[in-house]
């Protein structure tokens, strides 16, 4: 990988990508085939740029900015052309949580489970609740795990999110529950579930 060329990465992010790359390489060496990616690469596709040599296909979700959704989506495809990976790209237009819950994007494009690498690089937090007891994000991750589990294959799940001090307790609670959930998944032959949480303080 030509790390010098990726000056747009922040140092921290780059460190995380490098760590993740080791994980991806291990998975690639074990399975002997390239990984099918699904995630939120953003229009700059920085993670894809870093990992593209190990990816067989890319399912990229982009919601875009409200009222101008098409611009970021257009830019994401432009990046894929410039990186020479447009033929591997499957663009899903819409909100990631909705897409995972309904299994398709706003234009009816269905998610093609299973994936070997799922990268949830959220710009927001994990714990936003629409209702008192309901979190769409958690529901969507549950939906993802449920659908992945049907295929009984290993996969890597990377989650990156913003975190606020106010949510410390809830975060710990979530992690505990989530780890338990992942143990359940393991029982269902999901032999490896890796969770990377990048905690970034909101300034």
């Amino acid at each position, binding site marked *: 990988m030509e790390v010098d060329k990726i000056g747009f990465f922040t140092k921290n992010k780059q460190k995380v990508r490098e760590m993740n790359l080791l994980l991806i390489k291990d998975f690639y060496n074990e399975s002997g085939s390239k990984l099918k990616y699904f995630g939120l690469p953003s229009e700059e596709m920085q993670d894809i740029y870093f990992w593209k040599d190990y990816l067989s296909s890319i399912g990229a979700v982009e919601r875009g900015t409200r009222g101008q959704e098409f*611009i970021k989506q*257009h830019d994401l495809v*432009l990046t894929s052309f410039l990186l020479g990976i447009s033929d591997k790209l499957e663009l899903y237009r819409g909100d990631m949580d909705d897409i995972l819950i309904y299994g398709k994007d706003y234009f009816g494009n269905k998610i093609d489970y299973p994936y070997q690498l799922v990268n949830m690089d959220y710009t927001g937090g994990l714990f936003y609740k629409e209702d008192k007891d309901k979190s769409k994000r958690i529901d969507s991750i549950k939906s993802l795990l449920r659908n992945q589990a049907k295929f009984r294959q290993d996969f890597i799940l990377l989650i990156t999110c913003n975190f606020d001090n106010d949510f410390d307790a809830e975060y710990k609670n979530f992690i505990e529950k989530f780890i338990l959930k992942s143990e359940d998944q393991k029982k269902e032959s999901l032999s490896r579930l890796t969770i990377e949480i990048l905690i970034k303080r909101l300034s």
Partner: protein
Amino acid sequence: MENDLNLELSKEEFSYGFIIEVLTRGLYPDKFHVIREYIQNSFDAICKWRRDPHFDDQGSISIKVTNNSILIFDNGTGMDKQKINQYRYVGYSEKRVGESTGFRGIGKLSGISVAEKLIVTSSAYGVKEKNRLIFDTQGMILEILDLKSRGENIALNELIRNYTDIQTSPEEEEKHYTLVELNNIRPDSRILLDEDALINFIGMNCPVDFDPGFEFGEEITNKIKEMVDDYETVIIKVGERQVYKPYITPCKRPEYYTIWKEESEEEEDSELLCFSWYCKNKEKGQFEDKERSGLLFRSKNFTIGDRFLTREKLWAATPERAFYFYGEVYVNDKEVTPTSERNNFVQNTARDNLYKKGKEIGKTLSKIAGVDSEQSRAVQKLKEFEETIKNTSEEYEEGKISKELEVQKIISLYNLLDDSKKRINKLPTELDKQKSRRLMQKAQNLIDTFKKIKEKNVESKFYDITAELGFDDSCKKLYDFIIASLQDTLVDKEEICEEVIKKIHSLLREQWK
């Protein structure tokens, strides 16, 4: 700057918004022509880049179909801010007739007719920015229709200003590209989202290389490069698949035909009007694939019209003979320009000259096809002749030919014999001719045999007693059957046969009375 038309400065309005509706709804009845327009622009940008001093690769066009949009990307010269600004102007083009494939400045906006938004992002080499033009076509068309319903109109400049936006953002200096997105394809244009149909259209109409599976592709390409000015191709990919020009099989080795603008003894003194290559069907006769057989006009390596156009313009008679060939006619005269919709050439003296002189191609191919057709028919007839002789011989040997059919067989064999005599010289090989002679001899032998039998039958004609005894129809049929059987059984014992029949007659007279 003269070219930098500024909408704000326009004081007089010479065009109105309705022109957009006319251009976009009326110009492209075939939706795929919209895609061809953008491929043409990309192709021109790539050809231009190939002549740029910074040129580093051949360039390519990539098309991505998502479930609601089509994106066309090329790494040609790209456009700077000024050119992106000019992109909005209907009919504005810096391309010169004869030099580029597109030149009217209309095709670039053709996406308006099929998509809700037209988004063009481009970056020119050496410029540290990219520019994006957003055309809200849906909003624009809705406003036009609304105004139309109220009997009002709007100045074209104002309309475009209201529904377009240009955004600029940083880009790497060495990047050069253009990406056109036809965003949210309208329901009546969804056919464009069918990748297979798109690949088929591009392969037939755009400047791509021959399919590597076509054994004569390389030979033909080299010949075209040698003959046709500025012949270029480009790699076009739709998703993962590279598009190639399709071909049909089985083809014979290609042949070539050249027509010059002026008659001259020295080729160097004359300009090439058009160059044609064609392959005949290896299996004789017309190609089964009627969609791909025949000839196509090409101009700047884009297809003009369909195969019907060449049949109509190059064949004075027997246009169906075009189906004996698979090929193309490259128009090299720069004064012969395609119409906007690329379904024909613009009517002018140069076109008239092309169609007039081009008839030489039709005439030559018709002649070849005619000979081929006669040969093919002669071979077919030979096969039928062989089959008939074989069957007749077998039927005769097995005694299956009734007396009633003998005359018919003789007539039929005579006809075949006559027909074969007429066609023998049209057979393509000496082997076929020898075969035909052998069959004719066999036919003659069979005719002789039948004749002899007939003569014997005539000689042994006996007295018909049925009238004398007043037989009804059923009795007469039975009598005829018995007598015929006896004659068949005793065909070589004529005297015995006659004696037996006489005895039968005698007994019948006694018993019947």
